[in-house]
């Protein structure tokens, strides 16, 4: 927090960094205190509940701890946890595979579909509002609830699918297919979300660009790829990051179905299993958490860079 007092004080830095709005003078003492408190209170909260725990997770991942004793009952084991995860933990590689399937599926179906819907619905079309509402209504529902609702379709004895096809598939229970059943349910929600993002992005496409392309005789497909798609580049970037992070975080649906077992292993659920499951293995769970954190931090960096580049351009 020391920067807070320094930054506006030195004239040199003020000139060096001051963008359009850098016109403030040195604040009187009381106002400076106000500013410090206004930033410090939220900052303390986010640091204590997000950043400190993140670092502690990294530290704990090098130890063995059942979480009951004091901190000095932690037995430090170096990279043992990571080694165990990669070599002997049976659920890990299936979980990685499932997360990757999750990612691939989200990209190929709901994301592409959401984008196409947005492109079509961006047109002057009768009932566009109604269609939009229909597609993004599932977005307001939680994934846990979605898992619940889709049971009406997937239940073995009373589900609609089995009733229509006279089949006896346990869609949520059969480890060979339950992942796909879950993905379809996720897609129901994800499509509308992506559509919404692209609809907003398309509002930024200058209509005259499109008209110019039409005058030049470019057809719809060509216009899309040559005019609209390039303009949406920052949006595409954000969507990629969102889809990756959502796939990595996948948790709610599988947890509400079977706590992430039996064909529905995902990394996020494995972490929880190691903490609130039968065995509390804090070090091991932390190592899993750190793996998640490392993957996500790559994409968080990409995201922040995209956002900040836009920020600076303004």
């Amino acid at each position, binding site marked *: 927090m020391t920067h807070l007092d320094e930054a506006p004080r030195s004239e040199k830095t003020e000139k060096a960094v001051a963008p359009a709005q850098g016109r403030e003078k040195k604040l009187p003492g009381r106002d400076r205190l106000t500013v410090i408190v206004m930033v410090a209170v939220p900052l303390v*909260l986010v640091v204590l509940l997000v950043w400190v725990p993140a670092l502690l997770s990294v530290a704990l991942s090098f130890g063995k701890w059942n979480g009951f004793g004091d901190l000095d009952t932690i037995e430090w084991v170096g990279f043992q946890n990571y080694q165990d995860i990669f070599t002997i933990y049976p659920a890990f590689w299936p979980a990685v595979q499932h997360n990757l399937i999750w990612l691939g599926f989200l990209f190929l179906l709901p994301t592409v579909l959401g984008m196409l819907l947005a492109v079509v619905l961006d047109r002057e079309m009768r009932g566009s509002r109604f*269609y939009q509402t229909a597609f993004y209504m599932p977005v307001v529902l939680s994934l846990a609830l979605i898992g619940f609702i889709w049971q009406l379709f997937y239940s073995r004895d009373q589900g609609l699918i089995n009733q229509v096809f006279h089949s006896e598939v346990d869609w949520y229970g059969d480890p060979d297919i339950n992942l796909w059943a879950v993905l379809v349910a996720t897609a129901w929600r994800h499509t509308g979300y992506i559509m919404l993002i692209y609809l907003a992005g398309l509002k930024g496409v200058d209509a005259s660009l499109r008209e110019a392309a039409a005058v030049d005789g470019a057809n719809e497909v060509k216009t899309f790829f040559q005019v609209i798609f390039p303009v949406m580049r920052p949006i595409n970037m954000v969507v990629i990051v969102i889809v990756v992070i959502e796939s990595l975080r996948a948790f709610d649906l599988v947890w509400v179905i079977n706590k992430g077992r039996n064909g529905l292993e995902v990394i996020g659920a494995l972490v929880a299993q190691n903490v609130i499951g039968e065995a509390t293995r804090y070090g091991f769970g932390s190592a899993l958490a750190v793996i998640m954190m490392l993957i996500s931090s790559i994409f968080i960096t990409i995201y922040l860079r995209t956002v900040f580049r836009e920020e600076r351009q303004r």
Partner: protein
Amino acid sequence: MTYETPVATAPAAARAVTPPTRKEGGVLSKRRGAVATVIMAVLALLWLFPLVWALINSFREYEYTQVNGYLSFGGWTTSNYEQAWSQGNFGLHMKNSLLITIPAVLLTLWLSSMVAFVLARFSYRFNLALLGVFLAANLLPPQALLIPVFRMFREIPLPYFMSDSGSMLNSFWALILVNTAFQMGFCTFVLSNYMKTLPYEIYESAELDGASVWRQYWQLTMPLVRPALAALATLQVTWVYNEFFWATVLIQQGDKLPVTSALNNLRGQFFTDTNLVAAGSIIVALPVLVVFFALQKQFVSGLTLGSTKG
């Protein structure tokens, strides 16, 4: 997906709230238009179907559907709702959700509006870094922080009038604070961009009048950003209400669970009766659907705040 990833690129927040009047993406040719309409109509009905199906079957007797199958028509009743409500203890869980959601949303908006104000009003060297600290926190997988947070909360004692569990674990306070910490990033980002669209001159004249920084924030800026606050409040209410992960791991007393996490236990209870599942689903969906339909405009503009280039 407990925490919605914030959608935030080049922001023109002010314009996003009141959608710009502009030509839409052009009119389609007649034949293409007809094809597109048919496809859209089919897809839209497909998308509505799960909820409609839940709604229909929530009003049907279990015995009737057992005998005649689900592809029949009839057996109307409201008893599923009564049964689901009492068996699922929804009154209690709804109250819990309310007691968590309202304070969390208010706290989030208040704290993030303060940071946003400082970011928009002053241009310190650390502004971008500060925004990064909040925004990145928003994107971290919550599982990555689970163990330390869980253990920390177990150690922090709370007086009994604040929580009968005697510690942060199993208390609403824990959920309020965790939700707030996570959601601040998105709100700070959106609000600071919105505030940057306010003319800087208002602060100059406020300064001439001798208004303190606090008054500039509370009495000048806050009333002006009301549209953005309304949009964010709508969004946050649905997100916090829908939050599943933290409530599942931090609350182990069944009677303290908010609605969304209570679903986890209900699934076992309602397992054998799909009509009960349907009624339960509708009950849980109703609050967010009401918010959604009543404040649809706010909801959409909130989600897309800052993602249009103007």
